């Protein structure tokens, strides 16, 4: 399979700083792809630091596995959780060392695709979607108070934009526990995987995504179309999108 990846992180229409961080890597033999998006939070530039630590640590720990000499790990989820734990420790250390960073934390969503099988992990409300033909399916469940209330029937999707504590996460790096949620998805040729921060989901309704990206040829053009449409909608938050297309 031939993977094509593109990603953009944009400050958005209203924020002064970008607290999102993204990265990706395709192995030389094209068998593996690593995609990461993190959305930082907490105090004066703390969010930027936390999301950067999360993304850099994940890449530092997992990129060596992408070498053809290394061989794929038996349990990719364990390697992912190891990387997340290390990132969490580093964030905790910085929180303890610098009062300005004492409240920082970050979401994390990542996918490690090995021979077409995507190992998806996340904490927080950054999401991963699988695009198959004309279908868009979210593969992650937001770790938020609002998601819990949706699941127990207290509120409906229409209520979400009005709930005052819709920004409260139940899990993230920076909390005492950094146990991620995992999912495996088998991808076929033509399928795409889209990772994003809540700046995209907040600014651009999901039902508009497919029509926007279906008219674009390349991964770069598709990501640009989504981010531009979010900015046209005055995206209130930072917007980040990383897209993998398997051809």
């Amino acid at each position, binding site marked *: 399979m031939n993977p094509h990846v593109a990603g953009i992180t944009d400050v958005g229409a209203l924020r002064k700083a970008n607290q999102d961080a993204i990265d990706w890597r395709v192995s030389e033999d094209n068998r593996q792809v690593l995609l990461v998006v993190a959305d930082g939070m907490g105090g004066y530039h703390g969010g930027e630091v936390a999301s950067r630590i999360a993304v850099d640590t994940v890449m530092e720990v997992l990129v060596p596995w992408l070498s053809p000499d290394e061989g794929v790990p038996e349990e990719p989820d364990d390697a992912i959780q190891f990387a997340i734990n290390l990132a969490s420790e580093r964030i905790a250390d910085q929180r303890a060392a610098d009062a300005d960073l004492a409240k920082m934390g970050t979401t994390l969503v990542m996918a490690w695709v090995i021979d077409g099988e995507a190992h998806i992990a996340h904490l927080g409300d950054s999401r991963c979607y699988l695009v198959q033909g004309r279908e868009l399916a979210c593969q992650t469940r937001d770790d938020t108070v609002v998601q819990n209330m949706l699941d127990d029937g207290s509120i409906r999707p229409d209520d979400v934009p009005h709930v005052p*504590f819709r920004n*409260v996460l139940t899990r993230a790096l920076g*909390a005492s526990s950094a146990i991620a949620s995992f999912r495996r998805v088998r991808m076929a040729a033509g399928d795409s995987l889209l990772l994003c921060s809540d700046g995209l989901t907040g600014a651009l309704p999901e039902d508009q995504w497919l029509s926007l990206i279906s008219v674009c040829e390349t991964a770069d053009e598709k990501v640009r179309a989504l981010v531009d449409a979010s900015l046209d909608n005055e995206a209130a938050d930072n917007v980040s999108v990383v897209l993998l297309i398997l051809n």
Partner: protein
Amino acid sequence: MASFSQLVDNVVVTTFELDQPEIHVGRRGDNDIRIDEISVSGHHALIEAVPNAYLEGTVDYYITDQNSTNGTFVNELRIDRRQRLNSNDLVRIGWNEFRFIDEEENALEKTAYILD
């Protein structure tokens, strides 16, 4: 504490404190908020104050129409099931308008944070 203020021509005429787990609204005398007006059913609506199960210290307010004749509306949409109320929502009981205010809501942090 949240309140429910009756409006007439956009002016507050009466304010009711929502200080019980259940507040019954209707025309009959056994309601907590009694509205003696012909468009209001005997037992018209129920407002519930429910501690949020996931966010300690937060109380959510829900309104349910109790099969009233003329309906309960939140921001001019007729409700057909239990509906969470947000501060500043305009609630209509038959033809009577109320403003729901939750002072606690304004004190909540506006930026993202982690529950830990």
